[in-house]
């Protein structure tokens, strides 16, 4: 039994006349009870699975702090920089709200990377969860767009130059590139129209993300959760109701996650940023190094790694193709890895290549921050190549040649066999 039809596990009985009246018209209480409380969840989920809940909370934190910041922020190139300082200095609680939002972006990405890499290790993208994975990648792309535009709003030097460099990427696309570039910027150069539209879109996109998150959770609730052994739920013995078991475990995870979050917000709010962003944007002065925020570095390294022409494709377009490809390829992951075994735990060869991929990704992050010269350029090319080789060669080949370790017959069996 893979799928849980929506009403099969409904144990809801309206408690009184009002509830009954509501239930017959809009069964929202029934829906909540089924999906937030009774939802059968594999009993063996580990703490890596708490990051889904952490991410949901992070989205709420970003939206709430962001809405408050928007009340005090001025999207005008002459006033934006000082309006952020005004929030820090004059608005009640402003410096905490602003720091929470800025640090929150980093924490959000840290959590989403854990969440994605967890999915990759335990094969959470495999049938019947392909759409769940696709929606997840879509959320990741939307998050990147949102974070990028948000970073432009304080209108510091890095804001301005990041906006210039990143919008410029689009100019490499043949024919439509320049019109897109001008549409994004609202002119020929980054300026007031750019800031205005980025502010508008930065406010809009989180709600689009929230909508896709709802679809993501819907797609999760059809097949139910994957789990660390990757064997489908076979009977009620394999599951626990979501509440109180996983509400409690997730909340505990969320509180633990809040500890480093608070550490950054209250003690080192600027350490994840760049000092240059405390200099007001100036189109006449280019910073010595234009570096994106840390969470974009792996992809930035891939963008820069293509500094040579490939046949008729010049290096600039080549960089854009690889940059876009490195994200687009994630959409194809469910069909590149054909191994029937989900969990990396039971895949003796995959396991090693997985960690090599993680290491390679961390390497790309480092190289994205390093100056584009000397040995770094060579390493960036090697790491970029390996990134694509992992998806296009290693995973398809592994699924043909690898023999998985025997799987437990059920989740309960694997749980009972575990030594404590």
């Amino acid at each position: 039994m893979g799928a849980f039809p929506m009403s099969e596990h409904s144990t809801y009985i309206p408690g009184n006349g009002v509830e009954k009246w509501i239930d017959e018209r809009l069964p929202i209480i029934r829906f909540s009870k089924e999906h937030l409380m009774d939802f059968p969840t594999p009993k063996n989920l580990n703490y890596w699975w708490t990051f889904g809940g952490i991410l949901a909370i992070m989205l709420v934190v970003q939206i709430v702090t962001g809405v408050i910041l928007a009340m005090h922020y001025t999207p005008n190139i002459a006033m934006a920089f000082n309006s952020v300082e005004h929030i820090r200095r004059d608005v009640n609680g402003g410096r905490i709200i602003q720091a929470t939002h800025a640090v929150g972006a980093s924490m959000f990405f840290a959590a989403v990377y854990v969440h994605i890499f967890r999915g990759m290790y335990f094969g959470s993208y495999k049938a019947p969860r392909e759409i769940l994975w696709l929606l997840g990648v879509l959320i990741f792309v939307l998050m990147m767009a949102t974070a990028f535009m948000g970073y432009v709003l304080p209108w510091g030097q890095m804001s301005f130059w990041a906006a210039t460099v990143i919008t410029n990427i689009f100019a490499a696309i043949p024919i439509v590139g320049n019109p897109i570039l001008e549409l994004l910027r609202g002119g020929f150069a980054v300026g007031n129209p750019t800031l205005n539209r980025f502010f508008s879109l930065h406010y809009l996109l989180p709600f689009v993300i929230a909508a896709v998150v709802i679809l993501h959770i819907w797609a999760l609730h059809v097949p139910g959760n994957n789990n660390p052994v990757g064997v489908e739920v076979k009977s009620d013995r394999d599951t626990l109701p979501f509440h109180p078991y996983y509400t409690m475990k997730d909340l505990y995870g969320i509180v633990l996650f809040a500890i480093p979050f608070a550490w950054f917000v209250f003690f080192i709010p600027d350490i994840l940023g760049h000092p240059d962003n405390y200099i007001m944007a100036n189109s006449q002065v280019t910073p010595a190094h234009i570096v994106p925020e840390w969470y974009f570095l792996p992809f930035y390294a891939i963008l820069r790694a293509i500094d040579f022409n490939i046949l008729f494709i010049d290096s600039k377009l080549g960089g854009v193709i690889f940059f876009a490809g490195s994200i687009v390829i994630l959409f194809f992951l469910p069909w590149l890895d054909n191994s029937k075994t989900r969990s990396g735990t039971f895949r003796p060869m995959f396991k090693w290549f997985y960690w090599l991929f993680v290491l390679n990704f961390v390497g790309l992050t480092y190289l994205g921050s390093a100056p584009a010269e000397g040995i770094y350029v060579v390493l960036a090319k090697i790491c970029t190549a390996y990134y694509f080789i992992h998806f296009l060669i290693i995973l398809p080949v592994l699924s043909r040649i690898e023999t998985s370790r025997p799987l437990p017959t059920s989740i309960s069996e694997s749980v009972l066999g575990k030594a404590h």
Partner: protein
Amino acid sequence: MAGSSSMLKIKTILAAVTLSAICALPATAQEHETVHIEKQNWSFAGIFGTYDTNQLRRGFQVFREVCSSCHSANLIAFRTLAEEGGPHFSEGQVKALSAEYDIADPSADDGTRKGVASDFWPAPFVNEQEARDANGGALPPDFSVLAKARGVTDAFPWWVTNYFTGYAEGGPDYIHALMNSYEETPPEGVEIPEGKHYNAVFPGHAIGMAPPLADGIITYVAEEGQEPVPETVDQYSKDVSAYMMWLAEPGLVSRKETGFKVLLFLILFAGLMYATKRKIWSGIEH
């Protein structure tokens, strides 16, 4: 299955290290040419650090008597000088101080009036062009957030420790180093253009600002019962760097105080959550 559980632990550790490495990376992304900058012992350093009121007052004096003749501090209102956690002057002192300045005000009779506590610190030049003309073409940067717009780059992998020690004083360290790194004769082979000055820590080494400080140019008056403070470039620059950090981060003390309460709450709360979670899960094989 001891093997698999130790394997799991290794993986957990590996993953944790990876995550923290990812989090810690941006600090590497700076200048190639690393100039060594001596880190100072700031009273406001680390998680327990608070501003030293006397130092901020001395720093204010340096700013007022030296820096402010070229540098603006546009975001600072006189009233903030009376705030707790800052220089904490009395309201009377701030009132008297602000009255010493003429503030441009189109609604006043002759275009200017005496300052009041709610006024912002008046800029030394009317506009950027005038500032450049008076300074050999260079624009003296505004002081409001300057201490956070400068930093110190630590070599790999030492910057990782900054995340745990809470090092956020790169700006003051840089400013202090800048004030103490002027050399009258540049090292051999270094050409300094006319009107510029050699400074070992300034990027490119040719700085427009002439050495602003010299021993003894500012007279510190020690209050009763206080040790006299040395009147040296080193001391002046420490004091003014501290003052600039306060300009950039006036709420630092209250931010950290709140941080302790929040962290204490979160740690206790996490403990309770863990106990509850264990209780709920007891008896469930998982």
